[in-house]
Every structure is written in structure tokens, then in C-alpha cells.
């Protein structure tokens, strides 16, 4: 035979809750009442904490900030990860970072000009990565370490639709697949890379299918459906944990806010489009579902809101009570041990500051 098909692939789309919160019972993940409420709580926390960031930025109390508004269903991945698993995020995963146990003030610090905010103390989370698409390779390296040490741990990494156009994204998928490392790639396709829409980012019908070219599964998920996100994440993570290799998961979602506080999205998208996505809000959708399960009441919602707001106020107080970092700090973490030249430069700056402040 001269001609034959040597490869064919498929990409499935998974949605558990439709846009009105009605569940497909055949796809519902097995979750306890408490877990269902936890997913909802995490999303509400993220929305309020995110909104607070915006207010802090507008008041000049933190710097440029990237909102996650509309993308809260990413918290589904938090429920699928185990305590010893790792997260390698980009800069639009605050909801997930909070759900994994980071404090609201960690994020406020980070966007408020303190490197210390990148530590996420006690958690296996890498610092947020600003150069688009570069960090999935770090996730691959960490996952590779787990495989080499026979540890049953998994790394989840997040990036946006724009990142799939970067070379490092492809190198990461290729390495992950060649070495069959326990890494799950989550692409938050929020339809825009700043102003450039998804269709101009790639001519491919889905972003998930890019996984197939590297010999890994690619799957597309309704990224505004927290139950679908959880369901697919759990399957991919457990597959990776037990030697099944990496997966590329495309979460189809929408960035309701501007790219960052320095952007104005009204310049490049229509109200109609934003309204369309507003009707697909991940929190309202889950709220409808919880109502049908008799797990949601207005009273619970009110109490939840009050609790979260008071928790966030405390975080803001902690953040605002931080004193300006010591000027020498910029020299102290370049290397484990400071070089003589860095020591000299540090002293020089310190002396200048002292002179400026009239201490000498």
C-alpha cells in the first residue's frame, strides 16, 4: 500500500455544569458536600481578594496588578493536587495560589514591590513567572527530579493562550513527553494575550491538540466550570503520578478584566462579547448547582462574604504594616555568599543612604 494514515488524533471537550449550572450526571465527579462547598468558598474568596487588589492598586497602595476576575474556576486544580505536589504558575493564578493555602497578603506583597511575596512560605509553589511561557520548563525539570527519585509527586504548571506561541512552551512539552515526566500542563485560554485574540495566536482549532504532536493527550475543558476543571485535572494528575506521562489541558475561559491595571480592554473587545461571557460566570454557575443540591442559601452566602472580607482586611493590615525593605537586601540574595565587589557596592549605597538621611 503506497498511502496510509500513520497518525490520527482527537481532542475531547469536557463540561460537567452547563452555563446555567445544570449538571451532566454521567460526568459529575465524586465529591463530598464539604468539598463542593470548599470549591465555591475558594472561588468567592478569590473574587473578593482580587477585587481588593484592584482597589489597592487604584489607591496607589500596590503596583501594577493582573486580575484573575472570571477565571476563578482554576481552583478546581487545587482540589486535585496533593499536599506534596507542586505548582509552577504564571501571573494569573492567584485564585489557585490562595486555594493552595497562600495568604492574601502574600499576593499583596508581591504586587506591592516586595520580593518576599514570592516565597509562598511552606508551600510547594514556584514564584510567579513574568516572561510568558518560560516557566513550564521548570515544571518539567522538577517533575523529572521526582521521576528520577521514584517519588509519586506531580507538578502542575499554568500559562495562557499566548504562551503556546512561545518556543519554550514547545520545548517543555517535548521534554516532558520524551522523558515521560509527571507534569500536567494547564493552558488558561482566556481568549486574549493582552489585546491579541486567540484566533490570531494560532490557526489550530484547539490549543489542546498541540499536545498530540508531542505524543501526549490533549483535552479541552470548559474552564468556567469548576467541576469539569476538577474532574479533568484529577484524571490527568493521577495518570501522571502513576507513570502515565504528561497531559496538556486547555481550560477555555475568559479574562473579564483588563490584562493588567495598566491596560484598557475596551479598546479591543466589544461589550456584547463581555456580556456573553458574563452569563457563563464560574461562581454563579456553581452557585446554581449548589442550590439544586440544597448546599447554598443566601444566609450562607452572606456569612461567607462577611468572613472573607474580615479575613482580607486583616491581610491588608498586615501588608500595610510592612516596613520598607532594607536597602542592603538587594545585594543579599544574588549568591549564597556575597562576593567582595557586591560587599563594597552594598557599603557604598548604605553610606550614601546614611548621608542622605543625615545619619552621618
Amino acid at each position, binding site marked *: 500500500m503506497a498511502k496510509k494514515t500513520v497518525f490520527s488524533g482527537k481532542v475531547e471537550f469536557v463540561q460537567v455544569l452547563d452555563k446555567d449550572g445544570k449538571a451532566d450526571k454521567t460526568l459529575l465527579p465524586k465529591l463530598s458536600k464539604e468539598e463542593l462547598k470548599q470549591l465555591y468558598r475558594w472561588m468567592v474568596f478569590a473574587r473578593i481578594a482580587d477585587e481588593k487588589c484592584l482597589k489597592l492598586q487604584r489607591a496607589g497602595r500596590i503596583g501594577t496588578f493582573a486580575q484573575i476576575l472570571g477565571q476563578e474556576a482554576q481552583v478546581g486544580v487545587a482540589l486535585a493536587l496533593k499536599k506534596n505536589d507542586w505548582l*509552577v504558575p504564571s501571573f494569573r493564578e492567584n485564585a489557585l495560589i490562595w486555594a493552595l493555602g497562600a495568604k492574601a497578603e502574600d499576593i499583596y506583597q508581591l504586587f506591592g514591590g516586595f*520580593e*518576599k511575596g*514570592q*516565597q509562598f*512560605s511552606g508551600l510547594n509553589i*514556584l*514564584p510567579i*513567572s513574568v*516572561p510568558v511561557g*518560560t*516557566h513550564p*520548563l*521548570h*515544571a*518539567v*525539570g*522538577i*517533575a*523529572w*527530579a*521526582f521521576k*528520577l527519585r521514584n517519588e509519586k509527586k506531580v507538578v502542575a504548571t499554568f500559562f495562557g493562550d499566548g504562551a503556546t506561541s512561545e*518556543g*519554550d512552551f514547545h*520545548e*517543555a512539552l*517535548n*521534554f516532558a513527553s*520524551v522523558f515521560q515526566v509527571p507534569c500536567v500542563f494547564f493552558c488558561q485560554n482566556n481568549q486574549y494575550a493582552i489585546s491579541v485574540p486567540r484566533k490570531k495566536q494560532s490557526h489550530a482549532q484547539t490549543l489542546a491538540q498541540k499536545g498530540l504532536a508531542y505524543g501526549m493527550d490533549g483535552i479541552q475543558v470548559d474552564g468556567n466550570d469548576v467541576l469539569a476543571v476538577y474532574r479533568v485535572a484529577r484524571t490527568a494528575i493521577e495518570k501522571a503520578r502513576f507513570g502515565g506521562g504528561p497531559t496538556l489541558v486547555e481550560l477555555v475561559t475568559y479574562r473579564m478584566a483588563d490584562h493588567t491595571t495598566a491596560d484598557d480592554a475596551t479598546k479591543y473587545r466589544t461589550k456584547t462579547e463581555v456580556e456573553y461571557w458574563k452569563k457563563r460566570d464560574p461562581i454563579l454557575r456553581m452557585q446554581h448547582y449548589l442550590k439544586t443540591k440544597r448546599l447554598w442559601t443566601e444566609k450562607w452566602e452572606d456569612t461567607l462574604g462577611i468572613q472573607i472580607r474580615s479575613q482580607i482586611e486583616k491581610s491588608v493590615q498586615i501588608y500595610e504594616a510592612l516596613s520598607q525593605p532594607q536597602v542592603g*537586601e*538587594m545585594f543579599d*540574595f*544574588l*549568591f*549564597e*555568599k556575597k*562576593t*567582595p*565587589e557586591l560587599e563594597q557596592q552594598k557599603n557604598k549605597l548604605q553610606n550614601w543612604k546614611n548621608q542622605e538621611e543625615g545619619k552621618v
Partner: protein
Amino acid sequence: MTQMNMIQALNSALFHALEKDSSVLLLGEDVGLNGGVFRVTEGLQKKFGEKKVIDTPLSESGIVGSSIGLAIAGFKPVAEIQFSGFIYPAFDQLISHAARMRNRTRGKYSCPLVVRTPCSGGVRALEHHSESTESIFIHTPGLKVVMPSTPNDAKGLLLSAIFDPDPVIFFEPMKLYRQLKQEVKEDFFEIPLGKAKIVKPGEHVSMVSFGTMVPQCIKALELLDKKGISAELIDLRSLSPLDFETIQDSVHKTGRLAIVHEAPRTLGLGAEIAATIAERNVLDLEAPITRITGFDTIMPYYRLENDFIPSSERIAFEVEKIVRF
């Protein structure tokens, strides 16, 4: 002690590193079965296995980016980039992440990795195979940069680099891979980073050099000696951090300074040394500082490469000028 060339010395260093510490990994293109295109990793995969000496896809950013993750997760990766002229796809990973991870997380994470890469010209290679790119890395805060010129230094410095807690770019001058054989200790030893070496003490002028230019400077010493000029030769070995103290002490003694490197002149390491010595040794100087370097041109194809690279004659000629100033 055994007679070793630089390839053998580097191979011995990698052998000892792998033997001493199970977290050491070698990865790169052709480093496994093939033993590396220059045979630096020869026999190591056979000895330590495919999980320790890893052939990777042809993917420089992939090699360095995944090494960052491996390093964060507790390994000590020694990545090979086949030629320094091909390091650019990995540049973003080195500059944006490896160099910054410790600082960015205020010490929570660090990147104890080494990138080994053959460099510099003189071997009649194709375009991109003869580059001297060290300054770009020296200019980047958070990276250490090393370039040995002898087998013994190559071994001791590579072992220090591998066990250093921070990222090190380790340049290996290809021309010197097989040029010199010397006695090298067979077992594990380290030569500390950040310490220059006085190759030959002298009275009239300080010559500061590194990498391929050190053997050229040694030849120049003979030419100068015939003219009654006693030059002190310093091999920097570590380019970042740089041992200014040794240079300052030497210039204090001789009053004259010539810096010799193969890389282009503008913002080459010579510029930084000249500026610093001008600041710190102004009262010692009896003549202008001179730089003997490659030119601000693209490294030519091999027909002209020996006109680009400073020769011992050119070095001696320029050094004599400042001595007679």
C-alpha cells in the same frame, strides 16, 4: 599524578562529581552514548547509567530550563551546550530565571547548576562555533563565569563549579582542549572560584588574561624577555566574581597594565578591568592601560580568524609600547 590534557581533566572532574554525589546529573546533546562531540563525557554514561548521563533532544532552552527545575528540586545538573555560539536560545532561561531564582524568592529556592560550553576560536570551525561570549554573562547579576586555560585548573574549577550553590557558566576554550598536557591529580580536588593565578611573576608590566589568550601571553613573555622586559602574567580563571585584589597588587608593583582577551573590545572584560584599575590604582600607573583584544567585528570565517585573535607578536608589540611609554 597523571599526564592529562584538558579533555581528560574535565572528564576526570565529571567522573569524580558523579561518584561523590548522587544528585549530580549530566545532560545535553550527544553527551551520553557518543561521549560528547569533544569526548569530554566519554565513558561516563556506560559507568553511571542513562539516568545520570542523559542524551536530550536538540533544544538548548529545554536543556537549561529543565536544569533549572532539576536544580530547584535538589539535583546538581551539569548541562552541556555544544558550542557557546549556540547558547542564545537558552539565554532567556539563564538571564531571566537561573540568575534570579535565589534573589526573587529571597533565598527560598536556588539554582546550583553548571552550563559547560566550548568557546573561542582558533580551530578552523564553521560560523557560530568560535565565539567569545563571556561578557554577556559577566554583565548579568546572579551568574558566575569561569574560563580555565590549563588541564589542572579545568578540573579543579569544574569541581568547584559543580558544588557551588549558585549557577555557573563554565567556558572551555576548544583550542586548548588538547593543546597542553600536564600533571593532574587523579583524585577529587577543588580550586576556589574567584581566585586568579599568577602564572609568572614580573617587574615591569602586569599582563592580565584568560582562556585561549594565556598560552599566547606565555609566548609573548619570551619575546618580551628577549627585549629585557620582565612582565607579570595573571590568569584570571574566574571572570565573575573577578579577583581584583590580585590585579591591584600586581599593578601597584609594576605600574603598568595590559589586558588581553579574544572577545571583541567594546565592553569586553578588559573595559571593566581598565576602568576599575584606573579608579583604584591611579597613583600607581606610569603609562596608559592598554587592551589587546579581538575587534568589534563578527568573528571571521577561518581564513581570517588568526588576524582577529591576538597573536603573541601583537601582544608583545602592544605591551612593549606601554613599557617604553
